[in-house]
Structure formats: C-alpha cells, structure tokens
C-alpha cells in the first residue's frame, strides 16, 4: 500500500469487508450528481451532446457533398450529352473534319465493344483458373504470395501497363486493337481473380468435404460442385470488371489511338477506334461540335457503366446471399 502514488484517503484496506455501516471503499467522497434528480442532462452533457450533433451534421454534410458531386457530374453529362443522341449518332462515323458538325460514333462504339469482348475472353478464364488455384490447390504460403502479387498487379498504374505493352509490342511494329485488349485484360485480371476467389471460398466446405470423402477427384469436385455454385457470382464480378475497364483510357492512348473513321472489326493489324480515346481527343481539340459529340459519347459510356455496375452490384448481392444461406 505504501508505495502507491495516491494512497486511499481512508486508512481501511478497501477490499476487506468492513462493518456493515461503513462502505468498503470510498470513491471520492460523495457522488458529483444527485442520482435521484430529473433525468435531464447533468454536468457537461448538454455541451457533449451538442458536439456529438455537430459531428453528425458534418458526416451527413460530407455524404451530401459526395452525392451532390455525383449529381452534378451526371447532370452535366446528361444535359450536354442527351442533345447529341440521335439514330445517326449510333450509326454514322465522325465527320471527316474532326471539328465539323454532325456524324456519330459508330466506329468507336463497335471498337469498344470488340475490345471488351476480347479482353473478357482472355481475363475471365485466366482469372477463374487463378482463383481455383488459390482456393483448391495452392499451399497456404503460395496462396498468400499469389494474393499479394494480384493486389500489386491491381495497384500498377494503368498508364504503365500501356507503356510496357507499348515498349514490348507496339514500338517498331504498330498499334493493334488486340494489344489494347491485352492491356484491358491485365487490368481486369486481378479484379476477376480476387472476386472469383471470394466466391469460391463462399462455397460451403461441407460440399467439398463430402465429395472428398467419397473419393471424388478434385477436378470432378470443381467441375461438378464448386464451379456451378460459384459461377453466378464470378460472372457478376466480371460485369463489374468490364464496367471498370470499359472507361479505361490510359493504356489505349499508347496502344490503340491512331485510328480511322471506318467501322473496324479486325482486332489484329490496326488500331481499333474506341470511345475513351475519342472523348480524350475531342476534349483536346476544343471545338464546339467535337465537344458535343464527346459529351454524347460520354453519356453513352456512362450510361453503360452505370447500368453495368448497379446491375452487377444487385446480382452480386443476390449470388452472395445464395451461397451464404
């Protein structure tokens, strides 16, 4: 007791049961408030509650700011872009003079769709295989290292992915739509692989164990049990990855930005026209008609991405719920 910095005021040792009429310990003589008083705020509570309400108002305000910015951006794109929309906008090529009036973005639309199809065709199977390796085959240490590598790959700036493919493939050979798809596939790969892994992990282990216990080989289990239950979620994750990659511009300016005015279907041999680069170039030209078409293209792209990501989100929640229950 004697070595304590603040020995108790009463000399009685606090823990020894004292006489019934003497409280066993005394927490600073008397309470600082009357417990039997009305339950209105006592002490500093009014001020504390005011601070609490102010902080909540700040939080609400922050959320409102975010929503307001979203609303303003969407409004700007819709207000400027909706005017450009017409049947011709979807079926015609841009005018010969990029600053001229009229025309449409048909080649860019077709090109972006093609780029995304090829990129998905590369990234989806690869992503699923990586996810399967992570959940079914890899020893824990390897899996952990592989996850780190996927996260690092996800963190590589997309402009650098473009730069690398440019140096590796384009320099001295020329651009092709395929290279652009390759870059987009690299961007989508970690997204799909991690999301697929998450979905595969949600597949009840009981199902796997039951199959294992019956002596079923791993690939049969994967094909018969694991993949069928997770595929919905994986495809939804792919939609989200497509939504993310569809607007990706940075790699395309290095790999597929010198393109003509014609609708192009060949992905090898020449650059593919695409919406993101079109918007970027129109925004650099500063012409009234170019801007109008760029807003229109932005509107189309944003509408697609909004639908895909909101729809994907809803589907994702549903397939996750299905796996979890």
């Amino acid at each position: 007791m004697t070595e304590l910095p603040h020995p108790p005021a009463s000399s009685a040792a606090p823990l020894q049961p004292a006489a019934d009429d003497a409280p066993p310990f005394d927490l600073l003589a008397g309470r600082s408030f009357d417990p039997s008083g009305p339950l209105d705020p006592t002490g500093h509570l009014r001020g504390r509650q005011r601070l609490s309400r102010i902080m909540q108002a700040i939080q609400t305000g922050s959320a409102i700011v975010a929503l307001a910015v979203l609303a303003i951006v969407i409004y700007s794109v819709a207000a400027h872009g909706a005017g450009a929309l017409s049947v011709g906008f979807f079926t015609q090529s841009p005018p010969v003079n990029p600053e001229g009036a009229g025309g449409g973005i048909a080649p860019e639309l077709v090109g972006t769709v093609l780029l995304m199809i090829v990129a998905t065709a590369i990234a989806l199977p690869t992503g699923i295989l990586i996810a399967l390796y992570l959940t079914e085959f890899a020893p824990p240490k390897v899996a952990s290292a592989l996850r780190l590598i996927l996260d690092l790959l996800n963190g590589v700036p997309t402009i650098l992915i473009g730069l690398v493919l440019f140096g590796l493939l384009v320099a001295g050979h020329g651009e092709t739509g395929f290279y652009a798809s390759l870059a987009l596939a690299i961007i989508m790969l970690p997204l799909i692989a991690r999301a697929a892994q998450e979905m595969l992990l949600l597949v009840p282990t009981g199902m796997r164990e039951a199959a294992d216990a019956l002596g079923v080989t791993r690939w049969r289990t994967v094909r018969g049990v694991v993949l069928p239950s997770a595929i919905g979620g994986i495809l939804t994750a792919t939609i989200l990855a497509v939504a993310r990659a569809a607007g990706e511009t940075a790699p395309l300016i290095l790999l597929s930005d010198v393109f003509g005015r014609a609708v192009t279907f060949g992905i090898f041999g020449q650059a593919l026209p695409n919406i993101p680069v079109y918007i970027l170039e129109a925004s650099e030209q500063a012409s009234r008609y170019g801007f109008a078409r760029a807003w229109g293209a932005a509107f189309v792209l944003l509408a697609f991405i909004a639908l895909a990501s909101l729809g994907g989100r809803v589907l994702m929640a549903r397939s996750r719920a299905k796996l979890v229950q």
Partner: protein
Amino acid sequence: MSGGSGSLSPALGPAAAARGPWSAGRARGTKTDRFGDALLKSLCAAASLLAVVILGAIFYQVLDGASAAFSQLGIGFLVHEVWQPNFGHFGAATFIYGTVVVSLVTMVIAVPLAISIGLYLSTTASGRVRSVVGPLVEMLAAIPSVILGFWGLIVLAPFLQAHAEPFLHSTLGFLPLFGKGETTGLGLFTASLILTIMVVPIVAAISRDLFLTVPKDLQDGAIALGATRWEVVRGVILPSAASGVVAAAFLGLGRALGEAIATLQVIGGGNFIHASLFGTGGTLASRIAEDALGTPYALQLSAVFYLGAILLAMELVLNLAAQAIMRRFDAFSAVAAR
C-alpha cells in the same frame, strides 16, 4: 471409389451427372480422373504463373526501357527541373514535385471527407438511407477518369477560375500556395479536386466496411458508460479501425498517384516548378500520358520509362505498406473480436 461414385450422384445433382463427355468414364475412369486432375492443376498453376510473369514483365520492361535514359541522364534526372525534349533537356523534378503536391492536396481534402462519409454510412445513417447512399457514393468511383477529366475541363475549371481561385487568392493570398490563378482554371489545384472525386469513394467505402467490423460489444460497452454517439466514434470506432483507415488512405493515394488521363486533362501541362497551386504543372503519370500521345524518339521514350520507373517505385512502396497494414489489421481485429 466405385461405390462412392454411385452414391455421389445425389450430392452432385443431376447437372453434374449430365455434363459433358467426361461423365461417361465417371464410374471407373481412374485414368481419366488422374489425367483430369493433373490437367486442371497444371492449368491453374500456369494461369497463376502467368500473373506472376505479367507483374515481373511490367517491372522488367519499365526498368529496361528506362536503362538508356538512366545511363545518359543518371540520378541527376530526379532533381533536374526542365523537360524540353526538343532541346534534349530531360528532368523529372517538376513532375515529382507535381505528383507530391497534387497527391498531398488530394489527400488533405479527401481523407477527412472520406472518413466522415464512412462514419455516416456506418453509424449515423439509418439502414435504408445507408443502402441507397452507399452504392451511390461507390458509383462515383465508377465514373471513367476520361469523363471526369472532360467534366473538369469544361465545367469545373471555368468555375474555379471565375469563383474559387480569386476568392482563395484574395483571402489566403499571403501564402505563396494560393497565388494568382491561370486564365484557364487548369492547374495543380483543379487536378487535386478531380483526383479527390476519384479517391473519396474508394477510401469511404473501405472505411465504412472497417467501421462496420468494430465489434458491437465494444460499442455497447462505451454506450453503457454514458458516452454520446460522437464519444463512441472517437473513443472506440476510430481507434479500432485507425490502422485500416491508414491502409485505405494509402490505396487511395496510390490511385491518385497513378491516374494519368484525368490529371492530364486538367493540370495544364506546365513544365516548371512554382509554389502556387493555381498554376499549371504535371505529374509523373500525366507527363507519361502526354508524351506518349506524340511520337517520342528514342531518348525521350526512355526518359518517359524513367518517369514510369519512379512512379512504379512509389506505387510499390504504397501498396506494400497498405498490404502490410491490412494484414496486421486483420490479425489485430481477430484478437479484438475474439
């Protein structure tokens, strides 16, 4: 095995039984099985190896591409200020400075805003509001950077030029940071705001998820001690999630550092270092994008790769730090949630 396969059918369901040519050999097809197993496993391993190779190739290619510039320009590239490819002047200092300043301003605005939104979505808002506002905030992250940059160029920059910058200059102009604005409204400050719009939803979403994992009994313990909502947030929720929020901020910063297109559109492409946020400038990423748009010749291309190497190094450090914190945080919260 053979008996097992028979009784397995109900477990696998009719879908499995009816699937593909392999089904035929299912009952006794041990050879096919072994082959299938090995094939699947090697395919999976090959795909995983591919991911490793891609990452390795990115690093190798960036360094390889930069090697010519590195041998000619040396380490002095980092501190040399002028970037005039036509005259053979290459220096990264302007872009390193631009990257640091833009990222700092972005984080100063974005992190408090994002944490605040994360708190709103996890504690203040009611369940129904949460389920509407949350996805909308994340929607902000889905806007393509080229559209955001375009919007910044046409809508935001003129607004800032006409209103925000004169106001900030007249009230805070004694700080060199808030100098006289450009006539276009393009510059470091505008770029920071556009990047803020991109970073906030990322950090806010991760923060919200982190705040939601703070154990309910800890919060109950605080509430039962007569704490106000804010005191619970300050005393329990924020400290429990702090390191995770730092990691989230690192990930957001990584995004801001690496964004090339939107930055390119609104930063104005300046080539010199100056104190004012309202002046034009460039970041590593925006300079890479800008020079790539033209047709760079050999040394210029190598210098661009050199910029890329600096950027890649920054990203690597940030991502590794974020991953390290996240992993430790997982372990920590596992202990706390015991």
